[in-house]
């Protein structure tokens, strides 16, 4: 054992840091990719069930191998680059969409111990990463040399910038209550059962945050960036094969990320809902996954229920409803916390 340690220490520091972090990243990304694959399956199944259909059921027992079949099919398809498209940017755009969607997971506290980078401003880091995801969409739309793709990219960019603000304001409320930008500390501040979770005192912000999250990931009913009834498939019309699959992965990874963030910020992260024995015995990673699944289910439920918004109404909702609501509630929190005897409700 000592011998192995010696060999390990013999490597230069740079290499050791790279190897350890690389392995940790793989340990996060592979389960995430599996989750994404089966999230697509869950989406098709659940939306099918809600529409009184059965969804995919042919590949493997009850359709359970469907995502693998889809992945294999997409891998063997040709990636067609449209004529007069910007070849280099066309190829790099899917990676620019996927990169931030994965990078944001670096600071996600899965349990009390499991976090890759417990940095101090981790909430800001997540916001910065999610706001960069829009580049993949814009560049894809522009580089495709296609009207529909360009329209989709424009819609998506304006929408993401608008809802980013509402989302940021909703998070300000969490910061005021938790007194920290660190996701880990925000979760530990919610310890002690369901009545301590922030979704109760911050209920309007919780709703605004989640709906903005749906809009930010371009999901129904805010999916005008794809809008297949108007602009074919929006920014990724011209993409096929694996390049398309990467956009797909990015979209679903973003959805799971928003779900995980909602859980971390408002639903107590890895904490059990009741601080008594049968609940505390369950490992915290299980609580985290269960909660993320429940929130992610709402994405699918929304898609099965609501028709697509008209574009100007999306903008109205973002700027004229969500931002005022968050501003009012931030004031309410501030006033209650510091100027009334009920401050402990907001702590």
């Amino acid at each position, binding site marked *: 054992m000592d011998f192995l340690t010696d060999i390990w220490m013999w490597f230069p*520091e*740079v290499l050791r840091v790279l190897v350890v972090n690389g392995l940790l990243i793989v340990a996060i990304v592979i389960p995430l990719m599996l989750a994404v694959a089966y999230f697509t399956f869950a989406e098709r199944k659940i939306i099918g069930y809600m529409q009184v259909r059965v969804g995919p059921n042919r590949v493997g027992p009850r359709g359970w191998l469907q995502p693998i079949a889809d992945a294999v099919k997409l891998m063997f398809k040709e990636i067609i680059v449209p004529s007069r498209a910007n070849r280099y940017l066309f190829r790099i755009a899917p990676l620019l969409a996927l990169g931030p969607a994965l990078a944001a997971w670096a600071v996600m506290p899965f349990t009390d111990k499991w976090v890759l980078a417990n940095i101090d401003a981790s909430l800001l880091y997540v*916001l910065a990463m999610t*706001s960069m995801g829009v580049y993949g969409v*814009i*560049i894809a739309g522009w580089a495709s040399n296609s009207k529909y793709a360009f329209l989709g990219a*424009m819609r998506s*960019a304006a929408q993401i910038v608008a809802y980013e603000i509402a989302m940021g304001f909703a998070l300000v409320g969490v910061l005021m209550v938790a007194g920290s930008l660190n996701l880990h500390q925000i979760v530990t501040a919610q310890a002690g059962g369901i009545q301590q979770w922030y979704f109760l005192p911050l209920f309007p912000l919780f709703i605004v945050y989640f709906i903005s999250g749906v809009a930010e990931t371009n999901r129904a009913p805010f999916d005008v960036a794809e809008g297949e009834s108007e602009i074919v498939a929006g920014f990724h019309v011209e993409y096929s094969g694996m390049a398309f699959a990467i956009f797909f992965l990015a979209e679903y990874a973003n959805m799971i990320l928003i779900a995980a963030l909602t859980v971390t910020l408002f639903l107590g992260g890895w904490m059990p809902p009741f601080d008594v024995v049968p609940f505390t015995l369950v490992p915290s990673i299980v609580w985290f996954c269960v909660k993320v699944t429940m929130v992610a289910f709402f994405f699918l439920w929304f898609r099965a229920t609501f028709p697509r918004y008209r574009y100007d*109404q999306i903008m109205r909702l973002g700027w004229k409803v969500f931002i005022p609501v968050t501003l009012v509630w931030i004031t309410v929190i501030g006033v209650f916390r510091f100027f009334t005897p009920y401050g402990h409700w907001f702590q």
Partner: protein
Amino acid sequence: MTVLEISFYLFSLILVGSATMVVTVKNPVKSALFLVLAFFSAACIWMTLEAEFLAIVLVLVYVGAVMVLFLFVVMMLDIDVARMREGFARYLPVGIVVALVLVIELVLVLSGKFFSLDAMPRPAGHMADYSNTAELGKLLYTDYVFAFEIAGLVLLVAIVAAISLTLRRRPVTKYQSPSQQVRVTKADRLRIISDAQTESERQEDAQ
């Protein structure tokens, strides 16, 4: 070399390279994208200086919002590069003079006694649990609170001014009002006619 040094040189190389590309590349969209890369590398360098709050805010504000809007505009323009190059020779002397002045100023400042390496010792490193953000917040809301609030006010005025510019309404243009549209109820649009209408009522309707 430590990891820190390697990452510093790596990010500086990318920063300088992409900054050069911003001014040399022909396509304005590409040049805007290189500017994004330059911002991002600068943020990475700030990160190595333990200024993680500033670094992340740089990414969040400049990369995430400002450059997106910038790209928005640049992509919609159909810029004729050849015509823009026409005045190049004419403006070159002015450009060279400005560049020279900038370089001389930088050299004077950096080699002077106030900003040289001796005058600026390396700040002490902090523990891992040191909160850059909290310190910055304390400073901003105590010592510099007036400057901070005034900056906020100036920005607010600018926002109000920019919005008021868009309020110019031409009488010929037709606008729809989404807030009015969402307020529509069934009663405004739909009239239920009873089957049990009398003949006289039907005639009234016809007239």
